[in-house]
């Protein structure tokens, strides 16, 4: 055989590098579908009444979070957690402030869905990012992957689940199918439910009608992180970052990461090749050992 070990390795390495380089942008982007539902939150309208927070707890039969308050007399969560799917926070930037409603962004190309081992987190046809505990092993990779830090875990129970907004796809208050409870109760129309495309158009119209009112004259979630189905508008003096919305690249993190992965493992060529090579190397060495070199009680290859 004239193929040297060195050349095979060189070939593998070159092939691998080429595969990565070639595939880096080969994973197609996945924008929101035309019928995707979503929400629009306008921070200039929100008055911080927290009706949405209360309604969410009721509609989802979530327990109150009483730890923050002395005497545990009322529900006052500090952040999204194992019993809170949406929360209203106060965002402060210098002298200006705004209220911000935080919950799952229902990304067009969700990182959590990409990393979930058995698809417990999956995207429904209508764009909602849903969770099913039946195939969830509780590995919490979704918590690591989500750029918005949305999925929360129940740390103090022996039977935990991951908790996050699912746009009330399964309401426990008998109003199944009526859309999210938060949008239903908002007195100011600060959070609205509807088709993402329509909400995006409305948001852009609001910006057009009131120049100088909105931060950066743009809608957060239109392109951020590959696009999200929950869109945000912020007042001019309060940045998206102050609202807790991170600066994300236009390519969804899932798309970039998967491109490299799939590049390396294209059609399973690399693993099979490596396995074949190592087996061949051992078998090639074997006859030599059996003919003259094996020590007693010792076979090569142990």
């Amino acid at each position, binding site marked *: 055989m004239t193929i040297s070990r060195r050349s095979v390795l060189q070939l593998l390495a070159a092939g691998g590098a080429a595969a990565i380089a070639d595939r880096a942008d080969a994973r197609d982007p996945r924008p929101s579908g035309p019928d995707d539902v979503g929400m629009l939150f306008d921070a200039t309208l929100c008055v911080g009444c927290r009706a949405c927070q209360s309604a969410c707890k009721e509609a989802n039969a979530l327990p109150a979070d009483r730890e923050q308050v002395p005497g545990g007399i009322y529900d006052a969560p500090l952040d999204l957690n194992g019993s809170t799917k949406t929360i209203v926070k106060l965002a402060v930037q210098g002298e200006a402030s705004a209220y911000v409603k935080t919950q799952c962004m229902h990304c067009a190309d969700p990182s959590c869905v990409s*990393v979930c081992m058995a698809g417990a987190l999956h995207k429904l046809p209508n764009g909602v990012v849903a969770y099913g505990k039946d195939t969830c092993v*509780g590995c919490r990779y979704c918590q690591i992957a989500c750029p918005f830090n949305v999925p929360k875990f129940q740390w103090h129970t022996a039977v935990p689940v991951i908790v996050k907004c699912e746009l009330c796809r399964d309401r426990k208050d008998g109003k199944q199918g009526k859309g999210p409870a938060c949008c239903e109760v908002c007195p100011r129309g600060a959070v609205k439910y509807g088709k993402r495309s329509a909400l995006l158009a409305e948001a852009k119209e609001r910006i057009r009608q009131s120049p100088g009112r909105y931060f950066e004259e743009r809608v957060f979630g239109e392109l951020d992180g590959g696009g999200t189905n929950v869109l945000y508008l912020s007042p001019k003096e309060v940045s998206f970052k102050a609202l807790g919305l991170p600066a994300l690249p236009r390519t969804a*993190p899932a798309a970039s990461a998967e491109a*490299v992965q799939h590049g390396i493992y294209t059609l399973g060529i690399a693993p099979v090749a490596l396995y074949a090579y190592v087996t061949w190397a*051992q078998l090639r060495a074997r006859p030599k050992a059996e003919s003259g070199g094996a020590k007693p009680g010792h076979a090569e*290859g*142990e």
Partner: protein
Amino acid sequence: MSDASHEAPLGGRILTPAFKLMLLLIASWAVIVVFRLFLGLGAVSAQNDGYAWGIWKPLNVVTFTGVAAGAFAVGILTYAFNRGEYHPLVRSAVMAGAMGYTLAGTSVLIDLGRWWNLWVVFWPPAWNLNSVLLEVAICVMAYTLVLWVEVSPTVLEQLERSPNPRLAGAARKVLPVLRRILPFVISLAILLPTMHQSSLGYLFGISVTKTHPFWHSYWLSALFLASCLTMGFGAVILIENVTAMLYGRKIDQPLLARLGGVAGWIVVGYLALRLGDLAWRFRDPEVLARYREMGSQGFYGFFFLLELALFAAPLAVLFRRPLRANRGHLFLAGFLLLAGGALYRFDTYLTSYQPSAGWSYFPTITELLFSAGLGAIGVAVYVLFVKLFPILTGVEKDAAAR
């Protein structure tokens, strides 16, 4: 008589004071596990929604398997590159590997919130092929099995000499079969760690905005692969010397020195890739913006430089034959390799990870005890095995007296 290339059981008392200490640690570990099972993870750890993996992944899984990667590293040299002279190191490395991976798997099992759903890992229709963690889970479980299969000849060889005729007979029947299929098992033992050790790094490929740009990279796979090899070599050097010091066996220093040399070259490759990738990535204004956003430049800079130092310092020994011929210098170099690899893993998983403003994490004492207990299990079982089965070379005849 001692034979530097022939394995034999160490013999000697099992229940030494040190062993009893290990048992104590293991007992406390067991108590922690019971609490976790009935009261949830929050009862025994400081893991929170910001730092969901705490030290459980970086320490119990990634560092322990890094130490266990000696099996992988030595295996590549011996089998893929057909360097038979490294063969005497294989059994000890494989034993440490089997233990390390078993411990990592145990930690994962206890760490999983809904561990009863582990069946999904064995049920292809449920698989999400985009998930790197799935690939890690499957490979790690398969590899643990493979490692124990690789350990089995040592057990069977000892059983062949057993006074019990049934056991001896069974062993004699199984061994030849085992030896025939071993090459195919060993190929798996090279393929599987290549896949999952690189994937363990790539888990953080998706954490673009939450992992500090010094550590986030699309080359994490290669970097973790390279560093697991250096850790593996370091671990082999360390374990050989430690068992020699404790049990008076002779080690083959020139062999270890050559091993160190190989490790040195891998370190060079690692450093080149790490620094080159960093320079290339920082040309992107978005990366630069994220670097400035995350702030704490002194903090991140310190850990980054410490890592580099821990990787680079051993080169002073590994590339100089007179120095690496010295057991002490090589020992220190091995330790630094292990420390550097471990720090790199810790930094990628924990130190460089900032989910959002406000989150902080430090393990509780129960978490530290858990890791210590886990390590104690590893040490105890390793010691048990090397005393009972032919794993270590260079064993002196009257080792039984100890």
